[in-house]
């Protein structure tokens, strides 16, 4: 299925690219503006398809459950994805427990939540993203908290739906798939997701994982 989705997109991309390279000079300003719109739309479509394929793949992938040190996982994700921006952002972590889970899938949860935290706090003078957890008896509840733009709690039920976005495209880039993926992965572990926020006062995203987790998908 994935390549059927991608092939027509390559055609749009390809011919727009040729038009831009070979005929750009012959277009007037408005023509060039329209061409840029086509190319930008195709680029966004590409990201969307990749993320949808990711969502489908992560939903299907057979789970490999193992003892996973969350400290290593989170440190790895921060090291791999977020160090270049670390001068401006401070990411605070506390000591995290070891959990029985599919580390590849939970890694993706951390990637999505941390990149959201960074994205929505990026306009603050001093962005802060905080990682922690609480022992909730039968489960651990992990969280990623940021001091960013936050959201209206009236929309909290929409947050984790596919293609749901609470911000305009030109405010924050995104496809509306990241949190849907988080929810799907956590649910497969028998856990749950939730979020708390107040507009302008940052947001906290929580996900719980049972201490005796098993594959419930």
């Amino acid at each position, binding site marked *: 299925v994935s*390549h*059927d989705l*991608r*092939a027509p*997109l*390559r*055609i749009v*991309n*390809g*011919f727009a*690219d*040729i038009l831009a390279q070979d005929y750009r000079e012959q277009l007037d300003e408005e023509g060039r503006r329209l061409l840029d719109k086509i190319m930008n739309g195709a680029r966004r479509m*590409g990201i969307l*398809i*990749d993320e949808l394929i990711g969502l489908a793949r992560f939903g299907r992938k057979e789970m490999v459950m193992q003892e996973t040190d969350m400290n290593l996982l989170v440190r790895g994700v921060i090291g791999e994805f977020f160090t270049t921006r670390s001068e401006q952002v401070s990411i605070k972590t506390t000591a995290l427990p070891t959990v029985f889970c599919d580390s590849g899938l939970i890694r993706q949860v951390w990637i999505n939540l941390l990149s959201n935290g960074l994205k929505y706090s990026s306009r603050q003078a001093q962005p802060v993203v905080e990682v922690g957890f609480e022992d909730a008896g039968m489960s651990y509840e992990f969280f990623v908290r940021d001091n960013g733009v936050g959201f209206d709690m009236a929309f909290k039920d929409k947050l984790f739906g596919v293609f749901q976005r609470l911000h305009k495209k030109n405010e924050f880039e995104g496809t509306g798939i990241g949190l849907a993926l988080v929810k799907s992965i956590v649910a497969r572990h028998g856990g749950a997701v939730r979020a708390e926020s107040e507009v302008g006062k940052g947001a906290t995203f929580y996900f719980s994982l049972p201490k005796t987790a098993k594959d419930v998908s």
Partner: protein
Amino acid sequence: MYHKYEVDFLLIEDDHEEAELTIRSLKRNNLVNKIIHIDDGADALEFLFSEGRFEGQPKNHPRMVLLDLNLPRVGGLEILRRIKSHNDTCTIPVVVLTSSAEERDIIESYKLGVNSYIVKPVNFESFSKAIEEMKMYWMVLNQGPPYPKP
């Protein structure tokens, strides 16, 4: 008698837009003289084996075959099987050029003797680069087989 290749690439691809993009990338920076594009599996076989509407025409083996897998009438894997099992054509290098990264297709292609299997990158820039690199490899770096004896 020494025969020379007249056709560098035989491109078997049913999507005309995809084919145009591929041909453009092949022709970039020269090196390639003649490309024949056929958009149907059965026609491609007729061309390769001088059958049907190509009957009676002298065999004109391409230096290489670029093969899509998903083709009308006769599929890419069947074409590959026919090329590799016939004495006249079995030395022609065949490169599968497809959007399918399905493990099944990859394994089957290698079992049938494919010489290379390339999954087309989605992004056009990477696609175009992949085609060019493939061309450089097969046209310059690789020592191909001599023209099949008639």
